[in-house]
């Protein structure tokens, strides 16, 4: 799974994207556990972050699989 980081989350991880190997699909909780294992402390962004899966906002009950491109989206401020 490819995971994309932007603005403050990218400042925290120090990278724009990361690869995470998923053996089986996970829900959002499982995804955040894997992220926290790779980037300890990243969980502090969870409350302000929306997850996207394959370029669309993920549903609350979304399942994420190894082929997905996931993005951690901080509150947006375009326009």
């Amino acid at each position, binding site marked *: 799974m490819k995971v994309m980081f*932007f603005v*403050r989350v990218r400042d925290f991880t120090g990278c724009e994207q990361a690869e995470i190997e998923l053996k089986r699909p996970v829900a959002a909780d499982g995804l955040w556990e894997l992220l926290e294992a790779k980037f300890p402390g990243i969980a502090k962004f969870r409350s302000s972050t929306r997850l*996207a899966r394959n*370029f*669309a906002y993920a549903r609350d009950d979304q399942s994420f699989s190894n082929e997905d491109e996931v993005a951690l989206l901080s509150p*947006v*401020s*375009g*326009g």
Partner: protein
Amino acid sequence: MMKDVRVTVEIHDGAIPPLPGVTRDDCGAVVDFQGVVRRDEHGESIAGLHYEAYRPMAERELERIARELLTKFPCREINVAHRLGFVPVGEASISVQIASAHRGEAIKFLEEFMNRMKQDVPIWKRTSQSSAQPS
């Protein structure tokens, strides 16, 4: 209803070129909106703003929001362009052009499109390369 409706979405790394314009003769109202970078941002004088995006998703969200709003406010042509990178004070970061038979739909579309855009489209602005900033 949705046939014969044109929606274009463009994301530019430099200045937004003039939007394509509306040439059809069934539109009585054309609304152009430009969001421009102001000198004064949160009480601080700035030279410009840096915009970044999750680009493929930003393009899809802009189109998705436009298509969704068209079911509520039937318009005939929507052209949207957003600029990324450094946008100097006085230049446009976003440009939206809406054409409709009557003005009511175009004005309501603009209002709601901008609100939705600022909620959902993964684009972020910063006053400098290093400080993120909610809108």
